[in-house]
């Protein structure tokens, strides 16, 4: 091909793309669609054969917000994938880890905003993001998403022993590769029952139902 022709073609292509941009700008087309994940098992308990006490394995289920898939289940004995950047959030009981700091090799971080999910239109600046093993919680633990009732995403009722996601809280996550997503936890019980009608038999705990919006283009826009 003649270099001029190539230049012309390239220019046309660039113009074409630019034209596309103006009609359907790339940085605004992206996510808007919320993804819903149902009944992600976060180390559900089984009764100990000797004491009858419910026990878990203590292992996490790793999830990728980028692919919307579980990377490694809590009951998978081979834990090699846990040290990778393939996952963004890890769930075990009420604990949620991010892929960064002491929890993983990625660039992950998180911040729990007291703003409803729909109203979070943009990820906060990086100085507001917290990292596991670095940022201290009200109860002294160093976690991005603080454990403990009222500290992070849930409230625990000591009389009914029920864990309920706190309404109006949104977890903004920085993924292992440095992109952004917002997450809203909907239920901690299998089948995501109405929190007023949880049946311990039919709705065992440690099953997450949540929705999230992931921004693949690397911008902070979350709408």
């Amino acid at each position, binding site marked *: 091909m003649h270099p001029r022709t190539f230049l012309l073609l390239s220019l046309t292509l660039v113009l074409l793309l630019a034209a596309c941009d103006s009609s359907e700008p790339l940085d605004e087309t992206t996510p808007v669609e919320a993804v819903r994940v149902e009944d992600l098992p976060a180390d559900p308990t089984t009764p100990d054969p000797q*004491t*009858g*006490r*419910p026990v878990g394995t*203590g292992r996490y289920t790793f999830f990728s917000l980028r692919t919307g898939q579980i990377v490694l289940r809590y009951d998978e004995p081979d834990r090699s994938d846990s040290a990778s950047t393939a996952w963004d959030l890890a769930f075990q*009981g009420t604990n949620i880890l991010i892929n960064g700091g002491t929890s993983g090799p990625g660039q992950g971080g998180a911040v729990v905003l*007291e703003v*409803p*999910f*729909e109203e979070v239109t943009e990820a906060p600046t990086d100085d507001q993001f917290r990292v596991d093993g670095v940022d201290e919680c009200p*109860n*002294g*633990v160093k976690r991005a998403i603080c454990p*403990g009732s*009222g500290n992070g995403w*849930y*409230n625990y*009722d*000591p009389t*009914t*022993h029920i864990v*309920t*996601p*706190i*309404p*109006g*809280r949104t977890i903004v996550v920085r993924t292992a590769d440095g992109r952004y997503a917002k997450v809203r936890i*909907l239920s901690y019980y299998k089948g995501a029952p*109405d*929190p*007023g009608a949880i049946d311990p038999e039919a709705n065992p705990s440690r099953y997450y139902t949540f929705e999230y919006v992931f921004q693949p283009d690397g911008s902070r826009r979350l709408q």
Partner: protein
Amino acid sequence: MISLLLLLLVPQVVLDTSRAVPLPPVVVTATRSARPLTEVPVPTQLVPAEAIRRSGAARLSDVLAEQPGLLLFEDHGTGLMIQGFEPDYTLLLLDGEPVIGRTAGTLDLKRFTVQGLDRIEIVRGPSSSLYGSEALAGVVNLIRRRPEAPLAASLHARTETHGTHQLGTSAELRRGRLGASLLLDHYRTEGYDLAPDVFGPTAPSLRDYTADAYLTWDLPRRSLLSLAFRRHQQQRRSAFALEGTPHDESYRQMDWSLHPRLQQQLTRRMRLDASLYLTGYETRTRMTRREDGALYYADRFSQAYRKLELRLQQLLTDRQLLTLGGGAIEEALEGDRYAGRVSARSGFLFAQHEWTPRRWIEVVTGFRFDAHSDYASRLSPRLAVLIRPAETYRLRASIGSGFKAPDFRQRYLVFTNAAAGYSVFGVTRFREELARLQAEGQIARLLIDPDRVTTLRPESSVAFNLGGEATWFDEALTLSLNLFHNEVRDLIDTQPVAQKTNQAFVYSYFNLARIYTRGLEATLTARPVSALALSLSYQYLETADRDVLEAIDAGRLYGRTASGRDYRLRRSDYGGLFGRSRHSGTLQLRWQPTSLGLTVALRGVWRSRYGYRDVDGNGVPNRTDEYVPGYSLWHLTVGRRLGRHLELQGGAFNLFDLRRPALMPFQPGRRWFVTLTVHV
């Protein structure tokens, strides 16, 4: 007789003998001096023996439930809610001395028979300036009947729905200066089952026994020596299923008290009241597997309380009465949840000055200082004013401070939940128990600096009460009003301090929350004809957690609708503290047609909805499904005397059979009853 003598001591009472008007009843709880009910400077209610008898109630809970401004609060027993406070904040007295034996803060009112009482006095608003701890919301004083009759005895038999029976006998004797009375009361019920598809009864079957003896000896110079003794015992049997396996539960509770007291006139103007009060309480719980009797859970608890108190009342010139008092308390407890035996001592001093500078005004000031070995000392002042602009009007204003000492759990608990693995330690035991867990390698990490677990401050309040009453048509119509505001701080709650290697938490107690309760109490009493008496009452109540209000104002608190939408809460969405109805009221109608010889008593209790759970995870009631809907209960009792010795009474509690098994398991529905009393 004694109350009349005290009346002479109290300068502000004007005994007007020119008018043939019966003297108003005398009360002793509000100021610890005898005063006519209409002349107390703080809101006080009186339930005389006649009203107790007319209601047909067997237990204290049924009597108090229908009184104006009082609501019941169910939490590990049936407790009393005054001015929007949970039962822990009301002091219950028996002849002026504190009754012990609370479970999770509730003193179960079903424990008390109403037989043998002369009256119940209820003081609203804080009285810690006289009584110390627990007298934050109010004081309920059960006053025994004094033996007056030369010889009298009665037998009392009662039967009620759900296999409930009561059999009681009382006798009194008076010979010269000596008086004696004895009461025996047996109460039993088979319990009830509101959910037959669930294994085990809703309410247990129980057997309850009370014995009460009271001896009085009139001494020269208007002095009195008395000795009171009470023993009460209750056994409950119940059953429950644990993961499908039937288990039996048995519960035994015993309490006793001994109360020698000397009221001695020292000079014409000075009186000494010396009182020794010894009381004990113990419980035993056992849960066993039904098929083989294997022990699943057992718990023992025992508590002892000893108190010595001296009180001096001096009549000063210019219509002033000065009360000075002091004493010492020793408490001990032992239980499986307290890892052995613990004891504590405390001392207190109080002073009160009652003054009538003019005929139309009375001023009562007082304070009490409590020093305790396990928590911070506390000074509780109170100022109360009574104004009589005219014979038929009374205005009352008071400002006072109330407190509630950290309870045993908060101070001494050593408890680990075997099933869930978490531990809770009271503040005095925390260091030692944490060190033990650390030595055993059970602690994974500390969540906060353990030095922050330190001496607790008592929960304390500042309260205002403003009200009064007016009477018209020669006391045929009376209206009383009271506005109240209680501002409470340092409420004690648990907070995790460390996390164990099993991931469960170790909790201890901290002074955390701030709340307020405020509202209006109004009672209208009418007696259009002598055979008819009507009383209507209404209470408006607002309660809130100050931290919740802050979060709402900052826009940080949200609700979640059933469809999953989050919305920002406004103040109007917040239903206040759980278990509190914004509106409530009572109706009491008494009809005594002389021609028929009947006594008819109709009572109604109404309350608006109240929050009982959190569904959407914000910790406060805001959604409709987080409330128990409002309701009313109606009770009817009809009584008739049959000749000189017999009295027959019958009726029903919860006449319209209101039942809500899931929301109100403590409400068994309609209860018919018949009572026969024989007087000799």
